[in-house]
């Protein structure tokens, strides 16, 4: 985006013309086309014989969080989310068990579970970490975000969801300065807040201050969970640059680890936040496909 396009993106106004609305109405129905989840049938039947159910679902929606997710080791590719309007042209051809490249416009779904629950529960088995990771490497237009969120969340059942998103520093209305510090904030659904109150715990990540709003895919995901009474948290980072910064990456990983530990998921926290993951994630920053806008 040039600086004029950026100004339009960051200072929206409601002055829509009649002609614009009329011109858009003929093709606006395409916003309601659902996303399609495709699964590795053999693996999903083996690891999830009772359907797509997990303890924690993590969805990464920005380049920084996707870099973190890609760096997590011992994950298995389980499926992908195909978004309407997202072309697969230019994507790499993945062979064997290789992961897609950071620049590919894909949305892979990974699992950290190495064995079916019955096997994993046996003494001496591999560490049972019941986590599904969705790494959205393409940009979901804000008009398509509600239906995309519905398409994915209707297919996966989880006890708790964590969404990782970003907002531009120009849209942040709080007192912190994103150019001087790493700003990460949390939003929670009512169900998540209730669980926290019952546990008597205080959230480890500061809440997004009043007066600031988040839009786009992260907002659609959290809104869906709120309306359906599901427990979910959104961690949103305030970014100065689109490609992400190592310091913000580490802060996000630390916040995610703290959040998972506060929910009693120490194993998942250890898998997400360790030296090897951070080193690999730092290398992956800046290699992602360019995201034009966040909302």
């Amino acid at each position, binding site marked *: 985006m040039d600086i004029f396009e950026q100004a339009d993106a960051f200072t929206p106004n*409601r002055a829509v013309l*009649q002609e614009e609305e009329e011109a858009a109405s003929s093709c606006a129905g395409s916003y309601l086309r659902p996303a399609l989840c495709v699964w590795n049938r053999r693996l999903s039947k083996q690891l999830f014989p009772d359907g797509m159910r997990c303890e924690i679902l993590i969805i990464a929606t920005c380049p920084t969080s996707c870099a973190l997710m890609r760096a997590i080791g011992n994950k298995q590719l389980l499926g992908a989310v195909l978004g309407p309007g997202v072309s697969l042209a230019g994507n790499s051809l993945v062979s064997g068990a290789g992961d897609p490249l950071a620049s590919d416009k894909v949305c892979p779904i990974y699992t950290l579970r190495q064995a079916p629950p019955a096997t994993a529960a046996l003494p001496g088995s591999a560490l049972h970490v019941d986590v599904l990771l969705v790494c959205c490497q393409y940009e979901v237009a804000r008009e398509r975000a509600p239906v995309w969120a519905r398409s994915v969340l209707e297919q996966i059942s989880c006890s708790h969801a964590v969404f990782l998103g970003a907002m531009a520093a120009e849209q942040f209305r709080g007192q912190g300065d994103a150019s001087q510090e790493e700003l990460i904030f949390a939003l929670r659904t009512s169900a998540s807040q209730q669980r926290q109150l019952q546990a008597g715990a205080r959230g480890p990540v500061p*809440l997004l201050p*009043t007066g600031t709003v988040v839009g786009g895919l992260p907002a659609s995901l959290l809104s869906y969970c709120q*309306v359906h009474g599901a427990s979910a948290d959104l961690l949103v980072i305030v970014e100065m640059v689109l490609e992400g910064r190592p310091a913000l990456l580490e802060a996000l990983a630390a916040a995610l680890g703290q959040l998972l530990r506060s929910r009693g998921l120490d194993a998942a926290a250890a898998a997400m936040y360790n030296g090897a993951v951070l080193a690999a994630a730092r290398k992956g920053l800046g290699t992602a496909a360019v995201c034009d806008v966040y909302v």
Partner: protein
Amino acid sequence: MLCECGPEALEALKGAIVVLPAVTYANVGELAVDVLVATLKPQHLGAVESVNVLSVVGNDAYDPDPSLSPPQPGRLTTALELFKVPGRALAFLQQRAPAMLGRQAAFAAELVGWLVEAGVAGLVLLTGLDAQLRKDQQLDSSQLRFWASNEELRDACAAAQLRGQPSPQLIEQQPELSPLQQSSFALELEPEIKAEELELHHSLPPWPLVQQCEARGLPYVLLGCFSAEGDNAGEGMRLAAAALQVLAAIRAPAPSAAAEALGTEEGLLGLPANAAFPLRAPPSWVGLYGRSFPMEIF
């Protein structure tokens, strides 16, 4: 439309008047509903979701829930939220994000259809009107306008108009008041201007909602304020004050026992005529125009 609240909460909408904004120019409707919710402190019924509305989330748009002790911060706000005044046939539907480009008509049909199915008695639409499109006759008069779908609501608005007029004593005491300041009550929208708007801007809010209400026979009052984009907090307050006067004048579908015993007609708010109601701005307005900065830098 999906709604977080259960069937018992939806039951509360039956026979109620719902106040909602038409999300358009200068966001005046949403600002006015913000003021009304912060002032009247209705009960939060739940979040509503529509695939035709852009998503937005934030924390603590209003004061913390008073039923929790101690009050807990971090109450999630979504694009569409429903509130109900306990004991009154009055509800608020706040909308914080617009319908998607090209989906205004679809959203209006979805929303009005859902409200009709829930059994609401009528709507009060709060909206901004483009100040650049004012005719000469509108420049020097009150900047508030109303339009009602039936005689009963029109009479209520006219009664509210009389309450909103400054008294002759006030004008005498403060002759320096400008005509605009003196005219803080709503005038009826000129029929020819309404017809022109429906012809030229029928796809833009509030007109899709108005058309849907008329098509489904749902009574409505449209309350608008001419405004230009900028710091519209003042217009929001003014529109909220006008809405309170109209709500106080609209007859309650089921008056309270006290009003029945006295044989008086009771407004939706159950307040006596000309009752003063101090308006409050919600805490979320603190960030309306960006972050504050330390004055020491100058």
